[in-house]
């Protein structure tokens, strides 16, 4: 289980890895706003390409990532298909009225150019969000997330939850394996060839209960250890993983500040003020 984790626990070597946690978290939040705020292909496509370039520059393990991309891609395609099933003419309200029928299955199920446009932009939006999240996840370590969140004024107790939760995941994996082995010794069959699917599910619940209870039993010990080291006494906190800003961080800072201002401008002019159509459609 621990081998399947996507997030790194050790900082990497490439330029994107070497940015500070503050930069990564702030940049990521601005980019999320950027993705969420619009359905405009002129904004989404460049970001998607930049995201892929960023992903390539980190030299990730493609075998693992490919799997995530396929799963999420299929999931989103099914979603899009459901959207079309629910309302085949969904593009009309998005592209400012009018629907150019390309093909007609029956009275209700039609394919319109607007719907294709809307659904493909939507798919692009979801995939861009995936690419950007992937870049963020692969470039950051849990301690840097905590440091970055602290830099945007999140209370440090919540930051601790983030970094500590990730520290704890290998322990969960180890406990799970131990409990599983001791259950198997007592005759609980977990082999997929010998036990049916339903019995295996029941037996996994049997493993789960001791796992959860033993994990929560450890709360007292860890809390005492941290109290002894003076956790929670000060009002502020500094992070070991937070380094001094390098040149790349300063450049990134200018970039995300500019992008943030652009987002505010876009939301005020395009999202709050009424528009003739909800998205940019070139063929109307």
């Amino acid at each position, binding site marked *: 289980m621990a081998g399947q984790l996507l997030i790194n626990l050790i900082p990497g070597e490439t330029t994107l890895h070497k940015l500070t946690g503050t930069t990564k978290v702030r940049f990521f939040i601005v980019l999320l706003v950027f993705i969420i705020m619009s359905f405009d292909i002129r904004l989404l496509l460049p970001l998607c390409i930049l995201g892929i370039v960023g992903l390539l520059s980190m030299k990730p393990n493609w075998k693992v990532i490919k799997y*995530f991309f396929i799963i999420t891609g299929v999931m989103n395609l099914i*979603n899009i298909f459901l959207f079309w099933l629910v309302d085949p003419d969904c593009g009309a309200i998005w592209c400012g009225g009018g629907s150019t029928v390309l093909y007609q299955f029956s009275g209700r199920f039609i394919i319109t150019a607007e719907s294709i446009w809307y659904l493909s932009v939507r798919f692009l939006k979801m995939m861009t969000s995936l690419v950007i999240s992937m870049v963020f996840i692969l470039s950051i370590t849990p301690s840097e997330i905590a440091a970055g969140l602290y830099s945007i004024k999140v209370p440090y107790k919540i930051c601790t939850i983030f970094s*500590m939760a990730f520290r704890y995941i290998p322990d969960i994996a180890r406990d799970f394996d131990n409990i599983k082995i001791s259950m198997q010794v007592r005759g609980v069959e977990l082999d997929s060839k010998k036990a049916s699917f339903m019995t295996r599910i029941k037996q996994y619940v049997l493993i789960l209960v001791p796992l959860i209870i033993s994990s929560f039993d450890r709360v007292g010990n860890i*809390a005492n250890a941290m109290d002894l080291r003076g956790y929670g006494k000060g009002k502020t906190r500094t992070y070991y993983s937070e380094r001094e800003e390098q040149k790349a961080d300063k450049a990134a800072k200018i970039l995300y500040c500019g992008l943030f201002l652009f987002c505010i401008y876009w939301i005020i002019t395009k999202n709050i003020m009424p528009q003739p159509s909800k998205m940019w459609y070139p063929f109307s």
Partner: protein
Amino acid sequence: MKKESTLKTILGVWNTKTVIAMAIGAALFGVLMNFGGITIFTNTKLTTAMIIPVIVGSMFGPVPALVTCTVGNTIADLIGGWGFWFDWSIGNGVLGFIVGLLPLYGAKINDGIFKLRHAVIYVIACVIGNAFAFGVVTPILTTVFYGGELNVTFVQSLTGGIANVLVLTVIGIPILFALAKRNARNTNLTLDK
């Protein structure tokens, strides 16, 4: 025993112990969300992670349960790698809050009090919590964030909600009884005269 104010019960006590419990809860939530569930519909899972807020809520109060769920879902997104779904994270947080209201209606797991009456209220709270979190909060946020088609989100919410209620009642209630019994072991002593 000193009676605590309602507000304090809701907020929980934010000492080191609570922070660690939330961290462990969030870690378990994230792991179970990824490895302890079966996908039943797009974006929806029959997941055993849902019992974590019950335990955190019963021991530490609703707001810690809310934080556990929100952070836990974000962690699940981080290790799962399917992109971030903050609408669902916040929906789960709201659900965690409502499910974690246990101490408010007298089910004190720490003192070993969990009776049939509490179980009934708990089930009702689960149903209402799911209906509110995934029927109101998540669809609204989905529309705000992604401009989603509401019908699809509602189908997702409905399947997710039913799955959650199932997990919360079928696994949650036995665990709550077991925890209460464990903690009550030493408190039913009577004074011998």
